[in-house]
């Protein structure tokens, strides 16, 4: 079983195999358990990457310090989201929003999506990465539309069309990179291998590289949800099943961001090429402030948090755009914290929406009174995402703001403005959700809060104490990002 000795093979093979299995298995109970199990094993395999000797970068796959962070996070949130999904989906079946056939499809697609994302993160080949991102995108398109309501179809459709254009732009960028690299690295696969590209980045024609980066930034940026390319994101989050919203916000955005980062590193390694920093800073700030303003008028709780994801992607892209060890560290940390927190928020929002039977913000009131555990869980999540300590997001915002202010005061002020605007909007809504006289039914929730509190526990811990090994890791990555 030499095949299984390499964690990479498990990380990629297991989701595919489970997808095939789940596609034919009837019975949602078993399926959801298999789903969880598959995700757990994938996660363990990903975790094992820390301990096994890393294979040398190949034509197709690469494990390095950058993507290992992403892949562990990805599989972990995939696992917790699957756990959440198990308790969530039972309820959906109960109230008849989903049929068993669709559930089978849902579970299969879940694994396909995980496969796509893991593949994107592990690939060393820019073509393969593109394919993987598209697999992940298309599988989520199908998941978003799974409820078959008008709204869901509309959202899926919008996602699909905008996603397709994004795909096309990213592909064009990828072709351009190949074209630029081909004279240096030779024809065929070698010119598509990322490690090669990075190694010879300085010899590559900067003009083509610049052009390519514009396309890649916009193409993958569409997936990241950067304004003004974000339009698919709020609706896709709002209309799909909540576990998918959690995965979208927590993972897919990261995967797209990861792709942007890989190309940013190539750009940074080329002395003649355009500095990607200002571009990313601008897009980050635009996304941040735009999303922060959009938060105020939301009426749907999931759209609210979807816009908050745009806002945070803005902050992260801003941090990476600033560069330097502190900002990069902060960007990475923020990304991890955002994934954990936002998926936790979506977990709790899923329960809330099921209990209250609505996603309308105006109809969700007094949660701390009717469901203390859920209410305070949601509160912790929202406070964390708003950047309040003792949660991890605070630490990263602290680093971004302080390190930026002494370098670029004006940018830091804009950043602070955006953060504050978002803060005001999120807190306004949170006050409504968790306080006041409870509305609607007061039935207890039978859902499991373990994933929610597991995430929040991690976020809390990170806000106060980061293990030294993890920090060293992050710092190494931050240096890698330049």
């Amino acid at each position: 079983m030499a095949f299984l000795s390499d964690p990479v093979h498990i990380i990629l093979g297991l989701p595919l195999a489970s997808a095939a299995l789940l596609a034919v298995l009837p019975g949602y109970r078993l399926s959801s358990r298999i789903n969880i199990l598959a995700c757990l094993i994938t996660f363990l395999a990903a975790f094992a990457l820390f301990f096994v000797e890393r294979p040398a970068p190949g034509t197709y796959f690469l494990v390095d310090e950058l993507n290992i962070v992403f892949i562990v996070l990805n599989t972990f949130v995939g696992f917790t989201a699957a756990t959440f999904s198990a308790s969530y989906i039972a309820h959906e079946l109960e109230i008849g929003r989903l049929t068993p056939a669709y559930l089978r499809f849902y579970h299969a697609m879940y694994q396909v999506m995980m496969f796509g994302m893991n593949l994107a993160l592990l690939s060393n080949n820019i073509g393969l990465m593109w394919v993987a991102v598209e697999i992940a995108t298309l599988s989520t398109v199908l998941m978003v539309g799974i409820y078959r309501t008008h709204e869901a179809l509309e959202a899926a459709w919008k996602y699909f069309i905008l996603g397709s254009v994004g795909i096309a732009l990213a592909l064009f960028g990828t072709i351009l990179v190949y074209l630029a690299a081909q004279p240096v690295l030779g024809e065929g696969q070698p010119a598509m291998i990322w490690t090669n590209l990075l190694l010879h980045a300085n010899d590559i024609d900067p003009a083509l590289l610049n052009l390519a980066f514009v396309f890649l930034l916009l193409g993958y940026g569409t997936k990241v949800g950067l304004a003004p390319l974000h339009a698919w994101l709020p609706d896709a989050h709002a209309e799909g099943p909540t576990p998918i919203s959690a995965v979208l916000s927590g993972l897919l955005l990261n995967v797209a961001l990861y792709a942007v980062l890989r190309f940013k590193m190539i750009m940074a390694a080329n002395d003649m090429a355009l500095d990607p920093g200002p571009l990313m800073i601008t897009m980050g700030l635009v996304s941040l402030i735009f999303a922060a303003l959009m938060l105020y008028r939301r009426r749907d709780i999931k759209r609210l948090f979807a816009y908050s994801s745009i806002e945070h992607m803005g902050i992260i892209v801003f941090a990476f755009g600033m560069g330097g060890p502190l900002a990069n560290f902060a960007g990475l940390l923020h990304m991890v914290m955002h994934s954990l927190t936002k998926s936790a928020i979506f977990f709790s929002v899923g329960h809330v929406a099921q209990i209250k039977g609505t996603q309308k913000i105006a109809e969700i009131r007094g949660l701390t009174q009717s469901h203390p555990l859920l209410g305070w869980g949601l509160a912790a999540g929202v406070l964390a995402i708003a950047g309040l300590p003792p949660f991890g997001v605070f630490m990263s915002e602290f680093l971004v703001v302080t390190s930026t202010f002494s370098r670029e005061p004006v940018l830091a002020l804009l950043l602070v403005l955006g953060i504050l605007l978002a803060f005001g909007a999120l807190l306004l809504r949170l006050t409504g959700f968790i306080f006041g006289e409870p509305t609607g039914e007061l039935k207890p929730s039978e859902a499991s809060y373990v994933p929610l509190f597991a995430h929040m526990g991690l976020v809390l811990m990170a806000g106060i104490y980061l293990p030294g090994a993890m920090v060293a890791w992050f710092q190494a990555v931050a240096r890698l990002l330049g």
Partner: protein
Amino acid sequence: MSAVDLCLLTAGLLLGLGPLALLGQGRGRSSAVVYSASGLLCAVLALSGLAGLGGLGIGTSRVLPLGLPWMGAHFAFDALTAFFLVVLGFGGGIISLYAIGYGRHEHAPMRVLPFYPAFLGAMALVLLAADAFSFLLSWEVMSLLSWALVLTHHQEEDARKAGYVYLVMAGFGTMSLLLAFGLLAGPDGAYQFDAMRGTAHPPLMAVAILGLMLLGAGSKAGLAPLHVWLPLAHPAAPSHVSALMSGVMTKVALYGFIRVVFDLLGPVAWWASPVVILLGAGTAVLGILLAMMERDLKRALAYSTIENIGVIFAALGLAMAFRANGMTAAAALAFTAALFHIFNHMAFKSLLFMGAGSVLNATGLRDLDGLGGLIHRMPVTSFLVLVGAMAISALPPLNGFASEWLIFQAVLLSPDAPQAAVQMIIPAAGGLLALAAALAAACFVRIYGVGFLGRPHSEAAANAQEVDRVSLTAMALLAATCLLAGIFPGTVIDAMAPVVDAMLSGRLPVQADETWFTIIPIAESRSSYSGMLVFVFVALSASAAAWAVHRFASDRLRRAPAWDCGFPDASPLTQYSAGGFAQPIRRVYGTDLLGARETVTMPPPGDTGPARHELLVGDPSWNGIYLRLALAVTYVTTRMNRLQFLTIRRYLTLVFMSLIVLLVGLMLWR
């Protein structure tokens, strides 16, 4: 165990007490247990602080492997920390004692108990923190926990609004602090206070840091125009929490300001200090005028907190002005005055909020116009509140006067400053401070006169019962503090000397050597004051006069109805109301400063309907800044909201336009 470890341990225990409180589920005696434990831990903090002021444990520090990983969490124990630990421990301890009694009446204990001790712990951590990250972390946790406490009675719309405004202001403050620390730390992230102390900052940057600190710490402390959360949040919280927030938390905010501006930053350009002084003096006047207009007892107290914060900021501004000119003795005087007032305000404002809490418990009312006559029904509470009211009105021989007197002495030193601007602005600010002091006396005559004296305005007030002994003991302790600190100000000043010395490398002359507990800030020929003698003289002459009159003249007494001007059986409603009492002052100051407008609508002749008198008074900063800001955000967001409802084609257009913009940019970049 060193001092810093002891304090850290205590703070940690306080923080841990919160989650432990969850176990009790608010049943039975759990609230008494939690409050007693908090009180004891606070006592530990106060004692370590006192020991620190005596020189024990100063300079100890500790690095914990928490917080920013490559740096750790730094904590240190110095004189400034020690002083504020005394303020925190003393105030927190007595408030916890009060809470043992007061907390019994809480109908939602589980919304208070888990947060209350943790709030105390977080404040202690703010005082101990010695790097920017730990400081801000504790600072924000402190805000967050007090936010949860403000929302104890979350069913009330007012409380929710208060909580929201409070937390948004706290967020704003933290962002300002974040920026300030960003400047202090520099691009390489030298976040330890020790590193910041060693760095020289260019003058303009120093002023920028000062400005950001005014925004950051000022918004937490209640400096106008950032004070708007205070009158919302304090009445909404349970009274012991209000006492803690008003009496102690605002002081922690001041600690942040002092720590950065006096300790980490070094002297700031002299022209920045008149701004601070005027801001402080203006805040004082605005705060007390608003207090004068307020009918809600706790809200009026909250506004009065704003006034006192203004006074303290003015004193700190004076200290900055003197320090910038190298006038160490004068700076020490102003700084001592500020510290003294910080301590005093902790004492009397906590006392007054406890009194308000007792009244609230006894009558269920916060509206002054519903109270009245409490001096008969709640004699002890009324007496103790009277002491607090006298102290806050800066009447000798109580402590409020001692600190205000020092501030005026500092104001009188301003002619020695070389700059004409400082010379001229400070007397004007002194005038404003005098105005604020006079208004404070008027304000507390009004509060006490309408709320506690006269005849009851309502059934609830007529049937009020005296509160429990524990609460009374707590209040009595603070009242005694007010008196003692007023009679022996020299002792307090000497105790604070190490702090002043640490911040300014200079101090006031030792006061313990003076006879009759006199304080002499500069020289005897200049000014002196003996609180003890004033107290003794007044007490002696009053009792001598009373004895003599009763002995030699007459001691007969007869009760009779009050003179009714020929209209017998006047209803208690004919008494002067809170609004009526404020009317002369409103006419004089409010029309211009607060935009007070009165309209009287008379019924047409022959109509027997009532006439209507309407009064509009508002906080000018709320209407002028915050409402406009909210309107602007609403406007922008409403306009922008259309972007959520575009067609797919338009979204594609957005993508297309971004692409074109980037491509054109790329073209031009070459």
